[in-house]
């Protein structure tokens, strides 16, 4: 036998199966490209040197792992689909006298071709595109774009090794399947009798319960901190629910429909119900996958986009004033000392303070339980009843009256309380061994300070004077073995100046105040901007990048689903026409079923997202994004773009599908 026989046969096989292999190879190329680019960026030395670049590369590194794991699972999945379709072909080879080791050799060549083509084209494309993507990333991050073009050795090596291993694994898996199968089984391929699916009621119940529980968590979680810890469980529950309901729930519903004779035996419903039952049995898991993937894409893209777009908002939420100084103080003297240092700096820069806000305060975290606050550090729980965790700011009446231009008076045991959006219900508040009577519940506080970002919710409590604060501070220190940092002085203001000036002022204040007041913090949105850009820009980039990858995967799964169904539907299509269904009726019936199968995951993803909305907004609050409207718009936009993509894919695959179904029918 000619030496090139197997090589040639392998080439012909690929050509003959182009309809299914082409998308597979394209996906391989796409995945290789994305992986190379991701590693390239994560490894890029130039990016690492930029300020904030380190954070970005940490994010990108994470991204490259996600892509690697995804590539393994996804290419395996699609490849197994290809092989399922080709089993008949292998059976024929086997019967025509090729031994399994010969088939293995042909398959080896095929894999080699696919690997060479995908790696070659993928790496080439990756190298070419890497510069473009790099520039896009830098643009997103607000970094300077350096000139030059380079190829990353480590990225090339990483991509080569990863994908070589993946291809080898798919080959081994195929060989294992062929080795185990008998020729006759191979010949029959996928055409084993279709048993009617059983209704698995336990799964339906489990699915309904876990989906309900997931939704319930999302809808009822109030505090952002709780959201952070509960989100994972909610996602898990919804995933379980989706899988159970797609597999068992759909069958249960269809069977109930079938039991209703009057409904079932109508021309439209008759074929639809039976057809859907068959389809759901075959595709439930795939559809659940698509649904979850679609949900993931939508959540990922919409949140990262809204974080990026809302970065200014985020900065303003996190840093309500241009310069924010908090310093620990012990005597009135040092408050004035701090003010003097700050004013000296401002005088040097010839800048005038605007919207100045300053007050003394005692800060401590605690668990709010009814009218009592638990403050001992050893007893504060973050993980358990996290929703009761609050931040407390005690402020003397003197400062409050000064800032609000009011003349409120308070007794020793009286307080004013401001609790933000949540209402404080009790009439008394017991904290640090003292019980106070709530004299008034404030609807608002000093305009800007209350915006100091807090993910767990803050209480601003106005007490009679500094003496009260001092005694409480002493109690707090005793409770926590003298670890209390004492009370603080806050000074914040805005400046009417450009970013460069503010940055200079910020640096000067840091040097002037930082050394004299150990433990003080000086913050400015201008200084934080770069690192915010790095983190949120990095996330944004990753969101878009992975979103694109997931969309590609969804597209491919859908395509293969349609093609494989097309082959199965062909026979049914013919029979139905023979027993007296018109071509139009058959087409209509198939179209409605395909549409249902196609858009069921998308609609379910939409429902998931609608229910996830409350918890996601809470999570975004943790990241300082409180602009719910912005997120809603980003979400709607993402859904629309995704739906558009999805519809486009539907149109394209439907065409292929109809070609398969109607190919060779005489009518």
């Amino acid at each position, binding site marked *: 036998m000619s030496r090139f026989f197997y090589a040639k046969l392998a080439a012909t096989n690929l050509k003959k199966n182009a309809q299914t292999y082409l998308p597979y190879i394209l996906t391989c190329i796409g995945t290789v490209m994305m992986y190379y680019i991701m590693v390239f960026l994560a490894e890029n030395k130039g990016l690492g040197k930029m300020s904030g670049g380190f954070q970005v590369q940490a994010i990108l590194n994470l991204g490259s792992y996600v892509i690697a794991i995804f590539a393994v699972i996804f290419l395996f999945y699609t490849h197994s689909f290809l092989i399922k379709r080709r089993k008949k072909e292998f059976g024929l080879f086997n019967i025509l006298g090729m031994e399994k080791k010969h088939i293995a050799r042909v398959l080896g060549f095929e894999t080699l071709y696919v690997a060479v083509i995908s790696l070659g084209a993928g790496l080439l494309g990756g190298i070419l595109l890497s510069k473009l993507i790099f520039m896009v990333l830098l643009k997103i991050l607000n970094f300077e774009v350096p000139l030059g073009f380079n190829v990353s050795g480590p990225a090339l090596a990483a991509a080569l090794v990863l994908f070589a291993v993946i291809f080898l694994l798919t080959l081994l898996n195929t060989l294992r399947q062929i080795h185990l199968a008998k020729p006759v089984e191979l010949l029959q391929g996928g055409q084993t009798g279709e048993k009617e699916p059983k209704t698995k009621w336990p799964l339906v119940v489990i699915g309904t319960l876990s989906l309900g529980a997931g939704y319930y968590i999302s809808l009822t979680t109030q505090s952002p901190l709780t959201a952070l810890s509960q989100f994972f469980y909610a996602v898990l529950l919804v995933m379980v629910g989706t899988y159970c309901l797609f597999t068992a729930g759909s069958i249960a519903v269809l069977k109930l429909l079938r039991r209703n004779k009057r409904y079932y*035996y109508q021309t439209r419903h008759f074929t639809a119900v039976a057809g859907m039952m068959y389809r759901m049995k075959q595709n439930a898991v795939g559809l659940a996958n698509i649904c979850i993937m679609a949900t993931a894409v939508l959540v990922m893209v919409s949140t990262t986009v809204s974080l990026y777009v809302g970065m200014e908002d985020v900065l303003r939420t996190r840093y309500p004033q241009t310069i924010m100084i908090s310093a620990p103080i012990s005597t009135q003297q040092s408050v004035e000392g701090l003010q003097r240092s700050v004013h000296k700096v401002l005088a040097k820069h010839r800048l005038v303070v605007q919207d100045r806000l300053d007050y003394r305060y005692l800060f401590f975290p605690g668990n709010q339980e009814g009218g009592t606050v638990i403050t001992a550090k050893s007893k504060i729980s973050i993980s358990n009843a996290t929703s009761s965790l609050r931040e407390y700011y005690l402020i003397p009446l003197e400062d409050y009256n000064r800032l609000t231009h009011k003349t409120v008076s308070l007794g020793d045991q009286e307080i004013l309380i401001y609790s933000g959006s949540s209402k404080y219900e009790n009439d008394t508040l017991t904290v640090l061994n003292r019980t106070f009577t709530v004299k008034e519940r404030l609807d608002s506080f000093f305009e800007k300070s209350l915006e100091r970002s807090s993910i767990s919710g803050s209480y601003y409590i106005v007490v009679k004077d500094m003496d009260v604060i001092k005694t409480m501070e002493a109690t707090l220190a005793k409770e926590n073995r003298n670890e209390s940092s004492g009370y603080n002085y806050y000074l914040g203001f805005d400046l009417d100046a450009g970013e460069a000036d503010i940055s200079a002022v910020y640096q000067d204040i840091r040097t002037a105040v930082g050394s004299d007041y150990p433990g003080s913090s000086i913050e400015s949105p201008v200084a934080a901007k770069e690192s915010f850009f790095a983190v949120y820009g990095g996330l944004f980039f990753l969101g878009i990048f992975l979103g694109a990858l997931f969309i590609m995967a969804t597209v491919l799964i859908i395509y293969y689903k349609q093609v494989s169904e097309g082959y199965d539907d062909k026979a049914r299509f013919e029979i139905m026409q023979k027993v*007296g269904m018109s071509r139009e009726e058959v087409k209509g019936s198939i179209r409605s079923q395909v549409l249902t199968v196609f858009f069921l995951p998308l609609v379910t993803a939409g429902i998931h997202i609608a229910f996830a909305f409350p918890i996601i907004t809470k999570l975004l609050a943790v990241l300082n994004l409180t602009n719910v409207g912005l997120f809603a718009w980003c979400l709607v936009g993402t859904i629309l773009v995704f739906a558009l993509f999805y519809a486009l894919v539907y149109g394209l695959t439907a065409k292929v599908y109809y070609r398969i179904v109607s190919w060779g029918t005489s009518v």
Partner: protein
Amino acid sequence: MTILEVNNLKKVYTTRFGGSHVQALANVSFSVEQGEYAAIMGESGSGKTTLLNILAALDKPISGEVLLKGKRLSTIKEKEISAFRRENLGFVFQDFNLLDTFSLQDNIFLPLVLSGKSYEEMTRRLEPIACKLGIGDILAKYPYEVSGGQKQRCAVARALITKPQLILADEPTGSLDSQAAEGLLRLFNEINQEGQTLLMVTHSVKAASHAQRVLFIKDGEVFHQLYKAGMSDEVMYQKISDTLTTMATGGGRHE
């Protein structure tokens, strides 16, 4: 009364790229009377299936005409052809053509559902048929759960349930073992005796010997026909065999 009249049918297939022409039917004419049980015989490639497809309005002839109860098939509009087929013709196929997504009962109901009949009407019609065909116990099962003979009886039930003018059977015994085939042929005789008109295409001599009349097709033309009249199945079998031998050895045409 004549149920089916076929006049001078001609059909030529052109290969996909218009290269060669294959003549499937040259000039076929015959008729089937009400209540008759006729069989069409011929070798592979003699044009049997083409003829059946044209009779079923699944295919169109190049020239000639088919009249069902005096109605020209070519005059029926494209939109109405499916309904016409459903209401006037019943089909029994070699490979049963049952849908494995439906239970046997639903397979039998399929044409009625398509015609928009009520569930009560469907069950009323099914009862006597299921009883006669002995498939009452297996109606809830699915095609892949029953034997070939049972599948074919369900296919017959599906053909009968619309009370068609004519049942067209394409190699109905082709996929059955001899016992099941025998059972099916007896069944055909029974339903024929109850007045159902049957037209069967086959190349099984055994199957053809059950019919009242056998038409032989060769090279796209009706070559010969045999009437059973009072003959027993065995004698008929012998006569058919002889005719086939004559045809195969290239004997002259005799009417």
